[in-house]
């Protein structure tokens, strides 16, 4: 039997990242724009003003385009599980089966009923039922995101399961622990609210374009007010949920927190790095300064990580080489336990094959003692447990910087909207126009933090990515990588072309000037 080719692992990784990032272009807009459509329509139903109806229909049309182009792009991730990640998909099949099936059924019924009413039902069902359908689409789209994030949260913090050595699978023993996993909850609230923020920026951006062009001014102003209120609330909530996410990461994935902060030596009263350039030559365990330049805010990292200004936050070196004072076990020690666990598992398998039940029972009991370290047994050296620091570090800081900027943008827009002087503020409209693109950058950066920051793990502490893949030749994955690149680029071009055309046409003629 041939060893898994690391080149194949990296191509499979790149393919998954490519697909997930393209998929994530469409999803957050669906999550947020559905709610904005519901707000616009609620105002229409409440006021009876037909201008709001046209506004609703216009944004609903853009929502429909985004949904149509994006629908099913996530299924490709599932194709990849079976082909490129067969070890992983077999091992987690019992855990992921339920959440993904619920998501599929939920999405199907939602789309077949309420989507149809939302798009076909104008003038054919009552205003109240139409509005109800729009709200159901918004709520349902967001709820269907719960299940995929439950699955992702489980990978970051595996709970509510036990490894069955007979079947080589993790089996769920507590559905509630899986669903109410703190990582899954913080991930869902942070991810969905970031979608609200992105959609608000999208509406703001297009409305600013109309105002700069001097077209559909009234519609643009009204849209800006609603989007800015929703965006401001969402941005505040994103900051709050981001803080909670960082706290959960500090407790469950301390290595990820250390990487996104470029923290090598643990500290009490740890400062947060507001901005800085990493030293590219820095390696775990050496004495080089991790930063070429940095701006720090005292105490803030301790507060963020442990809700205490004076607490200790472990750095990469503490987590890799251990820290007796703070009772942190070294990775070398975990690797030794992990190798023992895997060896016991192999002995269990052998004993089963030879029908030696006494040996099987003993090996299983020994395996259980160290099973939580199993994943470490696949690492060749302690430093392999460190993610590539620069990528999550810069992605995190870009995300936070933009996340700080967005509420300011919304507040300034609201200020000038209420002064009714938006049309004269060309500089602000230009910032608003650009902010839509910045929203996408922040949104993608968030997933880079989450996924690159958890490397080398497919399942945190239990299965490294290199053991999750299928034993395939890299050429197989390379071919499909470029096919996906072509397919997704085509879809993205289709989305942009159709959207730009519809934006250029504008809302229904005759109803809004």
């Amino acid at each position: 039997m041939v060893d898994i080719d690391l080149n194949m692992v990296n191509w499979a990784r790149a393919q998954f990242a490519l697909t997930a990032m393209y998929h994530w272009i469409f999803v957050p807009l669906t999550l947020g724009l559905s709610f904005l459509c519901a707000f616009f329509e609620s105002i229409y139903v409440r006021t009876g003003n037909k201008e709001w109806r046209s506004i609703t229909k216009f944004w609903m049309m853009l929502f429909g385009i985004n949904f149509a182009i994006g629908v099913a792009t996530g299924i490709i991730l599932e194709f990849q599980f079976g082909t490129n990640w067969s070890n992983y998909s077999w091992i987690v099949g019992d855990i992921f089966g339920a959440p993904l099936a619920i998501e599929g059924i939920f999405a199907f019924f939602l789309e077949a009923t309420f989507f149809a009413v939302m798009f076909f039902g104008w003038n054919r069902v009552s205003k109240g039922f139409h509005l109800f359908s729009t709200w159901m689409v918004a709520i349902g789209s967001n709820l269907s995101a719960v299940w995929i994030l439950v699955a992702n949260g489980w990978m970051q913090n595996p709970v509510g399961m036990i490894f069955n050595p007979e079947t080589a699978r993790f089996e769920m023993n507590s559905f509630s622990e899986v669903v109410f996993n703190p990582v899954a909850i913080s991930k869902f609230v942070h991810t969905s609210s970031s979608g609200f923020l992105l959609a608000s920026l999208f509406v703001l951006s297009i409305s600013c374009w109309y105002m700069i062009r001097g077209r559909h001014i009234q519609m643009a102003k009204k849209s800006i007010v609603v989007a800015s209120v929703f965006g401001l609330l969402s941005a505040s909530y994103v900051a709050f949920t981001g803080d909670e996410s960082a706290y959960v990461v500090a407790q469950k994935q301390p290595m990820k927190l250390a990487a996104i902060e470029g923290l090598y030596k643990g500290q009490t009263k740890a400062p947060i790095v507001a901005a800085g350039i990493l030293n590219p030559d820095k390696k775990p365990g050496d004495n080089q300064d991790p930063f070429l330049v940095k701006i720090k805010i005292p105490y803030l990292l301790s507060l963020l990580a442990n809700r205490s200004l004076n607490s200790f936050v472990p750095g990469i070196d503490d987590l890799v080489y251990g820290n007796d004072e703070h009772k942190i076990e070294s990775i070398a020690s975990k690797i030794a336990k992990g190798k023992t666990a895997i060896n016991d598992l192999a002995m269990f398998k052998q004993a089963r094959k030879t029908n030696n039940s006494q040996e099987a029972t003993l090996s299983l009991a020994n395996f259980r003692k160290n099973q939580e370290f199993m994943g470490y047994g696949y690492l060749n050296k302690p430093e392999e447990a460190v993610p590539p620091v620069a990528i999550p570090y810069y992605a995190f800081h870009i995300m936070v910087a933009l996340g700080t900027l967005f509420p300011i943008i919304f507040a300034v827009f609201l200020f000038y909207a209420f002064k009714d002087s938006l049309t004269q503020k060309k500089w602000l409209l230009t910032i608003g126009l650009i902010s839509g693109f910045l929203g996408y950058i922040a949104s993608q950066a968030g997933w880079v933090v989450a996924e690159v920051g958890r490397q080398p793990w497919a399942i945190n502490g239990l299965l490294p990515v290199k053991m999750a893949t299928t034993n395939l030749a890299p050429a197989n994955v390379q071919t499909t990588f470029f096919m996906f690149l072509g397919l997704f680029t085509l879809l993205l071009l289709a989305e942009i072309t159709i959207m730009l055309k519809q934006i250029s046409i504008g809302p229904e003629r005759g109803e809004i000037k």
Partner: protein
Amino acid sequence: MKNSILNIDKKNRLIKIINSIFTFYRDGFKGMVLGKKLWTIILIKLFVMFAVLKLLFFPNYLNTKFETDEEKGNYVLEQITRHVSKGQSK
């Protein structure tokens, strides 16, 4: 007699509901303008994904190699245990 009239009434009501749902969807699809283009994209995309990519490039690896769950489990167990045994023998 009374029961059979009630049953016919129920049946007629059900047919009416099904008919109005059918008409709702039929007219909705007929009246689409931009929607037709979007549905075309969706159908092409689904065809490419399921009939080309899934069938030709993305077989389920374990399903193509093994028939039973036991065989699949044994294979994966072999994959995840051989690494360390090999490492230790070095």
